[in-house]
């Protein structure tokens, strides 16, 4: 079992993750990898209360997630791993070497970002980080919910898949 989905989503824990992906994947644990959340008891409690009773949540900063990844991967239950930004996922991929695919689930509008999909906005620097992920052998696709088509990175970056 282990981690079935590695997702980048700036909303972290929310309906699409817990219900949209969590239900069909029968996810029983979620690893929230975020340096800020991992350092705040209040933030951890906020997200813990958003998790359904059948799901367990683990909090880690990127360093901790690299250290504990083998344990997550060996978990007999299906699980999800979420980062809030591309940089955190890139650091995780570099430290773990065992992540074969990454899902872009939600990177929303901010100054300097351009729209690629309805739910994906990227700066040129972030586009470069995603290219680097693919160059490292990681399949990168955008897919907000399981019923949607997984859009390959090249198509995402063209910005014509609306």
């Amino acid at each position, binding site marked *: 079992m282990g981690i079935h989905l590695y997702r980048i989503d700036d909303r972290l824990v929310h309906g699409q993750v817990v219900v949209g992906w969590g239900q069909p994947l029968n996810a029983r644990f979620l690893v929230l990898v975020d340096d800020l959340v991992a350092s705040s008891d209040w933030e951890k409690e906020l997200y813990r209360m958003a*998790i359904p009773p059948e799901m367990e949540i683990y909090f880690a900063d990127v360093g901790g997630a690299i250290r504990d990844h083998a344990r997550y991967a060996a978990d007999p239950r299906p699980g999800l791993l979420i980062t809030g930004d591309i940089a955190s996922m890139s650091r995780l991929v570099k430290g773990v070497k065992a992540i074969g695919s990454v899902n872009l689930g939600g990177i929303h509008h901010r100054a300097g970002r351009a729209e690629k999909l309805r739910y994906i906005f990227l700066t040129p620097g972030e586009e470069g980080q995603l290219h680097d992920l693919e160059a490292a052998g990681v399949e990168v696709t955008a897919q907000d919910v399981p019923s949607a088509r997984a859009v390959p990175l090249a198509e995402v970056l063209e910005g014509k898949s609306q």
Partner: protein
Amino acid sequence: MNDEVVGGSDKPRAIVVGHGEFAGGLVSAVGQICGLADKLVVLSMMGMTPEDIEGALREQIALTGARVIFTDLPAGSATLAARRIVRDDPGVVLVSGVNLATLLDFVFNTSVPPTEAARAAAERGKASLIVVGR
């Protein structure tokens, strides 16, 4: 007499926010059933970041004076944003998992402050979920 308590004010008494057209649909149903949709502010979170949602909620609270927020999913971004607001302002009440029965009870209960009406409405909403058949 305090019009917040007796409901004499024309101001909305709560904000309803959720995924897709959820909030608009629920409030539209309230309007169709009892004509009191103007007691509720509809907020759609489509395409919004958590920061956007929190900002929009804070703006509506400041604009309308509403002290109650109804959201759909406990795990939803709107609920998380609302919880941040409740942390900063304990005078605001959040009810997640809202349904039509909850909102109807809330808009009619003008004999108590909105925050108190919200608590009673949540109980009515829970009781409205019934299963019929084997």
